[in-house]
């Protein structure tokens, strides 16, 4: 479960590469490539959250804030100041990383419920800032005119091109995170989850690692936010509200937060529910999300990615 080999990663990469082509062949799902762009954007966030929550065991119910910081820094600097989008993306990452450092250091001294509430409050405060600082953010109506992305004259101006860009980032983040998990740093994170006391006594800088992984997850969320802003060319605060933070929680709980695959699977499923399969429910989709979360936490505490292990255990018993 912890070893993620080269074969599955290559298979995964291959499936992603052929996805737009396959979607194009099957009538009725051509637009799935567009949905997959969002699945990729959310995967970037959930990969970071998986490290933070699943591996290091630190809960956050406020990551919509970092997602929003990335989107707004990119949006404001490009649309209002005409800066190069890639530089703005880096600026967004720096701001999100700095905020994560400042907020994370005191937050992560807290545990469990206190940490959850602190991150929740942080998320709502940032959401209020997006709404209130209308001079910068355009307020509740949002801001438009955010340019698309291009590099060396190559424009990411079609859904397919943006798909490959986003999933390229996802792939990089995935491999980077797998490498961390399979190194001493990943072991230290899991040790912190298991026993902070013992980890400390074994020389692990517990608070340092916690803040580090928090910053890492914030940076990935910010990157996702920038990609989102440049894809839609428009952002408004409602995208970055408390419910989005909860949706992120649903994604990693559904996929299985102790497993990086789970992060991607959960993000994928929830994205498709969000954009495709729950249209019928309109606004009442929130009930479906609540039900999913409850079923997962009661019956599949390790998420979908934990089901193979669960089955193995069941079969092994009989």
């Amino acid at each position, binding site marked *: 479960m912890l070893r993620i080999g080269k074969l599955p990663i290559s298979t995964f990469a291959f499936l992603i590469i052929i996805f737009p082509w396959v979607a194009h062949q099957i009538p009725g799902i051509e637009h799935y490539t567009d949905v997959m762009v969002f699945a990729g954007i959310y995967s970037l966030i959930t990969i970071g959250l998986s490290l933070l*929550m699943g591996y290091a*065991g630190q*809960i956050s*119910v406020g990551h919509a804030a970092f997602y929003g910081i990335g989107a707004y820094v990119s949006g404001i600097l490009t649309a209002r100041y005409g800066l190069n989008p890639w530089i703005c993306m880096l600026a967004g990452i720096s701001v999100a990383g700095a905020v994560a450092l400042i907020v994370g250091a*005191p*937050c992560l*001294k*807290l*545990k*469990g*419920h*206190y940490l*959850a*509430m*602190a991150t*929740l*409050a*942080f998320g*709502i*405060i940032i959401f*209020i*800032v997006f*709404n*209130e600082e209308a001079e910068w953010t355009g307020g509740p109506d949002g801001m438009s005119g955010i340019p698309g992305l291009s590099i060396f004259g190559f424009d990411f101006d079609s859904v397919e091109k943006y798909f490959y860009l986003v999933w390229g980032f996802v792939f990089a983040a995935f491999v980077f995170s797998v490498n961390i998990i399979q190194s001493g740093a990943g072991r230290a994170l899991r040790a912190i989850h298991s026993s902070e006391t013992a980890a400390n006594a074994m020389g692990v800088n517990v608070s340092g690692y916690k803040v580090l992984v928090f910053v890492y997850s914030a940076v990935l969320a910010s990157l996702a936010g920038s990609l989102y802003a440049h894809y839609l060319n428009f952002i408004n605060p409602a995208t970055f509200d*408390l*419910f989005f933070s*909860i949706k992120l*929680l649903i994604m990693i*709980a559904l996929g299985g937060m102790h497993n990086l695959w789970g992060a991607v699977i959960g993000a994928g499923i929830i994205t498709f529910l969000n954009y495709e399969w729950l249209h019928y429910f309109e*606004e*009442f*989709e*929130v*009930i479906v*999300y*609540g*039900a999913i*979360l*409850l079923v997962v*936490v*009661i019956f599949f*505490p390790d998420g979908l990615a934990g089901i193979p292990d669960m089955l193995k255990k069941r079969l092994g018993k009989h």
Partner: protein
Amino acid sequence: METITPAGQLFQYLITGITVGSIYAMVAVGFNIIYNVTEIINFAQGEFVMLGGLVMVSLHVGMGLPLIAAFPATMIIVTLVGMLLDRLAISPIRRPTVLSLIIATIAASILLKGTAMFIWGKDPYDLPAFSGRNPITFLGAVIQPQYFWVIGFLIITVIVLTLFFEKTILGKAMSACADNPDAASLVGINVKQMILLSFALSAAIGAVAGIVVTPISLMEYDRGAMLAVKGFGAAVLGGLGSFPGAVIGGLILGAIESLGAGLISSGYKDAFALIVLMFVLFYKPSGIFGDIEVSKIKRF
């Protein structure tokens, strides 16, 4: 017309703040009841308040039940919802960890919110004030009669609960569960039932808060989350688990919010309480009256 003096204005903010703060205090008391028995923080606590308001609207305004009948009927309905929450979301969890319990109560919270939207839609609802809406002018501030009901119910709630937990066997049994669940079950206390009872009690108090505040601030389906976070802020400010602390924490938080919105920025009204919450968590998580040594021993 009298002119509004700065002092009168300030007094007005304070009165409003104390009223809103009473609601936060009641939410905080609800948090404390469940926390004291289970050490769980119920993120769905605010939904009880929302339900209390909306169920009351349906019974009192919609079906025309008199106040005196609709009030207890609403409490009973919301109490049942609270018990259902425990039976469907909390007690079935086989490997309860802090994280899974947080997720379960968050799931319950959005389920309740979605169901409320399904039943009542998205519009805010009003409820007639218990004793009319002829305001009293006092020291330059305008005071709604409903304010007295809010504060009165807070006082009654706290007194009844304190007596319950300190004087009755059932109340003492409930407290024993949190101190040491294993020992409690050894001496024959049914821990599961005590947890169920704590959810019931906590929901009932949430309902009261919702019923008394709706005539002042209306009620709609999505108010729960904010009420929960602010109520938690009040609970932490006064020291998690303490009833007098919850009251003082709620009143201080309400006053800060009202003064902040009036004097600094109304747009950031909701942010003030949350900023206070974060600062308390960062610098004195045991609360303003709390003992740091004790809070270190706490499991969460």
